[in-house]
Structure formats: structure tokens, C-alpha cells
């Protein structure tokens, strides 16, 4: 029997009333309107779905160890990659940072007591859970085999799987996303503390504002598309059926009108996280604040202009394809602006290699590779050859996993002391970051080569080209390593909640209103309403040896 940890002699934050200990009991959590508690509810739920999606990924990679289709049948394999995609996109990536970190931090970063509509925030979580339960039920009773993109007419006319149920699950989860976006937009416009002007907002807020615009304007289109697919399936309407005069490409236009901006929903929050981390661990204000802020908005707007680059070989007009190809090149520019600004921030900064920063570095490199390969795909001539191959799969995993998930993990580490009041073990965290980085590259870099060499995606059997096996084996090995890397934070975060060292208000000596309150914060965030008189990222002041400098924190960086 282990001995209980002896109580430290300093005043423990846990003894102070905070949002975690203010009320106990299941109902105080399930009926909470506190944005911080709702963020934790989301944290548990999306972690659950992450492991479900990861489980499907594991089965896919196991099947692809050998060229023959010998682990599962073809139909089953179709269901595996479909469920992997649907769960990861709609129930993990799209909510992840906004619903967990965004919900927790947006009110605090603007100096408010809560989001504008706390009860709608709770409703958002319940909608997510209802959608999630529907999706689970769908998967357990047969699943869907159309690919996460559920193209018509296969999804409307030919498949026997549970499209309507999966579609409804996504529809409901989509409304969760819309309401979160609505809450953020109204909060950022209406609930900023006195003195918190737009140009003093953390860039995390700008990123979430841009994300919310996309959530609000894009999600309804896929929602109505799902309605049409359900109606078509039930009533054989012919809206997408060529035999009845419909156009399958119309489905693709409507689907991708949301689903392309959706990828920016997934990456923009991660970019916001990375900006905060890079500023803090270079001890410098972000280079080119306005450029970074406006590039977030530009990505949100431009992101709506490029959707048909997913349809280049589907039968659309070549002239329209030219237009979309050009626009797809344009959308890379604001992302590149951010990369330049982050690099310039790092230059001559005082770099600290704590775990959040390791994830941010990982993000920088991997997002750049993913983004540049997007340009390869935006070129019509190349796309004709690599579309629907593993090149595309590698491209989007570099951005979604190498980018968004790294950003999410970096953010979880950075704000963990604030969220839990405890410090995670830094040594283990750095090791985990390294394992994730190595595992990730081992999994997905071979897939660029595979795609370039012609291995199609969504195939369970590649025995017609057995020379692909070596790279597939490497990829599966990498996936195992990556899995270990993901398990480690789960373990040590949970460990730290009980055994971790208590965190001070600002263990990183970071800028931002959220660091000026206790760790964990009180229910209403601040003991008194903050009045902001300083610019964002005032690291010079924070690091100034002059103890009388305004807003200087004396707490050193904790180890």
C-alpha cells in the first residue's frame, strides 16, 4: 500500500475555492454552466472518441501490413476507414481545441466571467454527446462504408449501410459546433474587459474568432446536404441520381463547400495555440501581431473559395478547375505569413525547450511540410496523378496530426497547470513529445512515397504491387510508436492530478489575463474585473529585472 504523499507546507491552491472544488457531485458537473467545467466535460468526451478513431486506425494499419487482404473483408475495411475518418473529423478534430481549450480560455483571455451564453454552451456539449452516442450506435450496429465523404450516388442509392443514422449524428454534432462558434463570436464582441481593445487580444482569440466564422457559415451547408441525402435515400428523389436527372457533382460541391473550410476549423485554433507557446518560450512579443491577426481572418475567408480542388478529376469544368487551382495557391499565402512571423519571433528569442515548445516546433516543421504538399495537390497536372493515392492521405495527416494534434497536445501541456492546478512531469512530457514526433514521421512520411509511387487510398489489398509492402510495414511500425506517444500524456496527466506538484498562478511567467488568476481559477475567473492597460505579449516587462515594473511577475518558471 503506497503511503499518502505528505502535504507540502506552502498554501495549496487546492484549499482555495476554485471551479473544481466549489461543488461536488455528478449533477454539479452535468448541469454546470461554468465554461471551465464544460471544457473538462468536452476533454473527457473527445479523448474517448480519439481513442475510438485511433482503434480504427490501428486495424487499418494492421491490414496493410501485408499486400493481401487477409485481416478483414473488403466491406469491413471500407467501414474501418469510413469510421476512422468520421469519428476523427467530426468527433475529435473539429471540437478538440475550440471545445476544450477555447471554452476554458476564451472568457478568461478577454477578461469575462463566462461566455456570453453559458446555457447554450452546455447545450452544445449535450448535442455533441447525443451525436456521439448516435454515431457509436451506428458503428456498433453495422457502421457505414462510403468513406467519411459519403459521396452520392453510392451513399444515396447503392450502399446498404446506415447512412441516415451516421448523417444525423453528424448533423447533431454540427449544431454543437455552430453554437460554440456563436458563443465565441458574441463573447469576443461583447464581453471584453475594460481596456481590452481588439489589438490587445491574444492571437489565440483572433484564431478562435476566425474559426468561429467558419463554423457558423460553413456547417449549415453540410447540415442541409445531409438533409438532402437522407431525403434522397428515403424517398428516391433524384437530386443526386444521374438516372433521374440529378448531378452527383452537386453533392460534392455542397459537401466540400463545408468540408474544405472545416480543415481550417481544425488548424486555425492550433495555430492560435502555437502562437501563444512560441511567444512565451521565446520570451518575445509575436513578430507582426497585425499580420498574424489578419492572416487568421484571411484564412477563414479564403478557405471558402477553394473547395472544388477536391473535385479536379471528378468531372467538373476544366475552366472552373483552373480558377479553383489559382485560388488554392492564394489560400496558402496567409498560412505562410504565419510561419514567417513565428520564425521571426523565434529569431534572437530566449528559447526554452519545455514540452509545449517541443510540440510547437514539431508543429512548425510538420505543418510546413503538410502545407507545401498541399500546393503540390493544388497544381492540376500533379493532382491528376496523385489524387486518391496515399500522397493525399499523407498530406492531410501531416496537417491534421502533425499540425492540429501537435497543437492540441502543446496547448494541453501549456495550460495544464492553469486547468488542473498541478504540474505535469516535465521529463516524461519531453520524452512523449519526442516519441510522438518520431512515431508520426515514421507513420506518414512513407505514405508520401507510397502515394507518389501510385498506391491508391482506401484499398485493403495491394497484392498487385507487392513492392509497396516495405513502406507499409514502416508506416504501421510508426503508428505503434505514435500510439505509445499518445498514451503517455494520458497517463501522466491523470497521475499529475493526484500526485503532481501544485502549480502557482503563472508557472511559465506567461503573458495573458488567464495567468493573472489562480491555478485552478475561481468559478467566476477573476476576483475582480480586470482593467487592461498593457499590450499583448508584454514579455519585456514580465522578464524585466526591475521589480517595480508594472505587471511584473516574480514567480520564476517552475521545474
Amino acid at each position, binding site marked *: 500500500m503506497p503511503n499518502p504523499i505528505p502535504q507540502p507546507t506552502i498554501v495549496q491552491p487546492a484549499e482555495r475555492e476554485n471551479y473544481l472544488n466549489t461543488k461536488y457531485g455528478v449533477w454539479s458537473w452535468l448541469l454546470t454552466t461554468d465554461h471551465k467545467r464544460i471544457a473538462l466535460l468536452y476533454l473527457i468526451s473527445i479523448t474517448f472518441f480519439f481513442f475510438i478513431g485511433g482503434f480504427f486506425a490501428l486495424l487499418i494499419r494492421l491490414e496493410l501490413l501485408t499486400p493481401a487482404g487477409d485481416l478483414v473483408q473488403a466491406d469491413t475495411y471500407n467501414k474501418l476507414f469510413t469510421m476512422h475518418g468520421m469519428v476523427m473529423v467530426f468527433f475529435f478534430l473539429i471540437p478538440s481545441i475550440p471545445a476544450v481549450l477555447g471554452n476554458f480560455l476564451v472568457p478568461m483571455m478577454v477578461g469575462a466571467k463566462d461566455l456570453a451564453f453559458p446555457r447554450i454552451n452546455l447545450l452544445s456539449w449535450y448535442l455533441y454527446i447525443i451525436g456521439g452516442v448516435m454515431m457509436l450506435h451506428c458503428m456498433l450496429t453495422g457502421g457505414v462504408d462510403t468513406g467519411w465523404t459519403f459521396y452520392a450516388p453510392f451513399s444515396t442509392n447503392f450502399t446498404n449501410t446506415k447512412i441516415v443514422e451516421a448523417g444525423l449524428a453528424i448533423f447533431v454534432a454540427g449544431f454543437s459546433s455552430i453554437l460554440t462558434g456563436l458563443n465565441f463570436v458574441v463573447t469576443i464582441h461583447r464581453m471584453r474587459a475594460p481596456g481590452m481593445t481588439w489589438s490587445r487580444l491574444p492571437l489565440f482569440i483572433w484564431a478562435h474568432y476566425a474559426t468561429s466564422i467558419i463554423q457558423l457559415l460553413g456547417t449549415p451547408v453540410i447540415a442541409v446536404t445531409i438533409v438532402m441525402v437522407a431525403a434522397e435515400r428515403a424517398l428516391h428523389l433524384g437530386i443526386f441520381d444521374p438516372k433521374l436527372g440529378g448531378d452527383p457533382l452537386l453533392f460534392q460541391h455542397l459537401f466540400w463547400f463545408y468540408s474544405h473550410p472545416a480543415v481550417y476549423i481544425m488548424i486555425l485554433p492550433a495555430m492560435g495555440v502555437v502562437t501563444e507557446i512560441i511567444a512565451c518560450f521565446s520570451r518575445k512579443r509575436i513578430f507582426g501581431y497585425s499580420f498574424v491577426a489578419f492572416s487568421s481572418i484571411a484564412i477563414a475567408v479564403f478557405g471558402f473559395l477553394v473547395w*472544388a480542388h477536391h473535385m479536379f478529376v471528378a468531372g467538373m*469544368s476544366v*475552366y*472552373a478547375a483552373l*480558377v479553383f487551382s489559382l485560388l488554392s495557391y492564394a489560400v496558402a499565402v496567409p498560412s505562410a505569413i504565419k510561419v514567417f512571423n513565428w520564425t521571426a519571433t523565434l529569431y534572437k528569442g530566449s528559447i526554452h525547450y519545455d514540452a509545449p515548445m517541443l510540440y510547437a516546433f514539431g508543429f512548425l516543421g510538420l505543418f510546413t511540410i503538410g502545407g507545401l504538399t498541399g500546393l503540390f495537390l493544388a497544381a492540376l497536372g500533379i493532382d491528376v496523378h496523385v489524387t486518391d493515392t496515399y500522397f493525399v492521405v499523407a498530406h492531410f495527416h501531416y496537417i491534421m496530426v502533425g499540425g492540429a494534434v501537435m497543437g492540441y497536445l502543446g496547448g494541453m501541456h501549456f495550460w495544464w497547470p492553469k486547468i488542473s492546478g498541478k504540474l505535469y512531469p516535465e521529463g516524461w512530457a519531453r520524452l512523449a513529445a519526442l516519441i510522438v514526433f518520431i512515431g508520426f514521421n515514421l507513420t506518414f512520411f512513407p505514405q508520401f512515397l507510397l502515394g507518389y509511387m501510385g498506391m491508391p487510398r482506401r484499398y485493403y489489398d495491394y497484392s498487385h504491387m507487392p513492392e509497396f509492402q516495405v513502406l507499409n510495414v514502416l508506416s504501421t511500425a510508426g503508428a505503434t510508436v505514435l500510439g505509445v506517444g499518445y498514451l503517455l500524456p494520458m497517463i501522466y496527466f491523470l497521475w499529475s492530478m493526484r500526485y503532481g506538484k501544485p502549480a502557482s498562478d503563472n508557472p511559465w511567467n506567461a503573458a495573458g489575463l488567464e495567468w493573472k488568476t489562480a491555478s485552478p481559477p475561481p468559478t467566476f475567473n477573476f476576483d475582480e474585473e480586470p482593467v487592461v492597460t498593457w499590450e499583448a505579449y508584454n514579455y519585456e516587462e514580465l522578464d524585466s529585472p526591475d521589480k517595480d515594473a508594472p505587471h511584473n511577475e516574480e514567480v520564476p518558471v517552475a521545474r
Partner: protein
Amino acid sequence: MSAHSSASASATSSPLKGYFAVWIALLVGTGLTVYAATLDLAPYNAAVALGIATIKATLVALFFMHVWHAGEKLIKVVVISALFFLLLLLGLTMTDYAARLWS
């Protein structure tokens, strides 16, 4: 946006006059739409019908939904953004359909 409740007595009757005027305009517009549909204005029938509809919708938004009197520009920005993205959806989709060389 300040509440209108502190408006003077003479001002409280003016919103009513405006509302009734807009109401009449909307009904007239509807009648006009129906009448214009029976005339042969090819190829402009659709344009006329949608043009009148847009005028009606604008009247509802500006005066019934109080966008005209909104204190700050934000509401107007929200409305214009929604319309902008709708036109994006319609317009860019039509670049495909209009430029296909097959039907």
C-alpha cells in the same frame, strides 16, 4: 443600441407610420410581382421577380428588423457577410456549371 423607450412622445408615433408604410410597400410589391409574372418580359422575368423580392427583403431587414437604425456597424457587417458567403456558394458553384462544355 440604445433603447427607444426614452424617445419623446412625438417620436413614438413616427415608427408606426414607417411600419405601416413599409407594410403597404411590401403588399404592393407582392402584387407587382404577380402582375409582372403574367407579362412577357423574356428574358427578364426572373430578374424582375427576384429584383422585387430583393427590394422587399431589404425593406423587411432595414425597417422591420431595425438594421437601418442600428447604433453600430456590426449588425450590418453580419448581414453583409452572410449574403457575401451565400453569393460565394452560388457564384463559384456556377463557375463549374456554366463552364462545362457538356450539359
